[in-house]
């Protein structure tokens, strides 16, 4: 399957995209370190459900052109009470990102076919976290495109 896709790309003249440098955050220290690094995307800065990112870190991330990515997967696989903590924490994060004008990326973060979600569902997820419909659309289309273009 992979080989067929590779051959098809070659025939059609698609140039393979360079992989985007993304790093998974989580703890306060890790988030601060990533914000100062050459990473392009900070993945899931609060996977424990605690507020582990502050405005100063977000400002540094913005200055270094690092996007903040929120994946649906961690919400899907969390237990009931952890999910509540995650929703509270990420709503706060989205609020801060909008204030600091950080680039937000929404993704499914799927590891298998059952974790994949459609764009409509990801837009609804963005609206649920506090984005407007337009911002959520931008977060699943234009924001990742910008990061990929920057990598090229």
């Amino acid at each position, binding site marked *: 399957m992979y080989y067929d896709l590779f051959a098809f790309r070659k025939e059609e003249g698609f140039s393979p995209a360079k992989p985007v440098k993304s790093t998974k955050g989580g703890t306060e220290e890790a988030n601060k370190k990533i914000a100062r690094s050459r990473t392009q995307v900070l993945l899931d800065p609060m996977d424990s459900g605690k507020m582990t990112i502050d405005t100063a870190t977000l400002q540094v991330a913005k200055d270094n052109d690092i996007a903040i990515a929120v994946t*649906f997967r961690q*919400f*899907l*696989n969390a237990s*009931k009470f952890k999910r509540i903590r995650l929703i509270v924490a990420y709503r706060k994060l989205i609020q801060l990102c909008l204030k600091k004008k950080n680039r937000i990326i929404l993704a499914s973060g799927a590891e*298998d*076919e*059952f*974790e*994949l*979600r*459609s764009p*409509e*569902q*990801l837009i*609804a*997820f963005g*609206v*649920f976290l506090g984005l407007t419909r337009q911002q959520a659309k931008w977060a699943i289309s234009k924001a990742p495109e910008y990061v990929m273009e920057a990598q090229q």
Partner: protein
Amino acid sequence: MKPFPPTLREKRRYIEFKVHGPTTEKDVSQAISNSVLSLFGEDGYARANFSIIEYEKGVGICRCTHEWLDNILIALAFVGQIKGEKARITVLSVSGTLKTIRKAKGI
């Protein structure tokens, strides 16, 4: 009984969805209801006026009020397991009338 005037009727949205995974109608209905209940509670469930209208061969139609459409879409996305097995629900289309959605479905 005198029908409600159009301005007082609630605006409904019908969602056509597909279930990926081995499931029966009862299990799917229970999983979606549990997801809506756990995310929005009984008050939210009532406000959304949520119900599953039909389900056949992995494709079903559910109904909610237009104000709660995004919330119901997110509740459908949060269904990750049905009866202990991995599953996912994808939204095929959203419509304002049952007639249109059935037309799209090819009934």
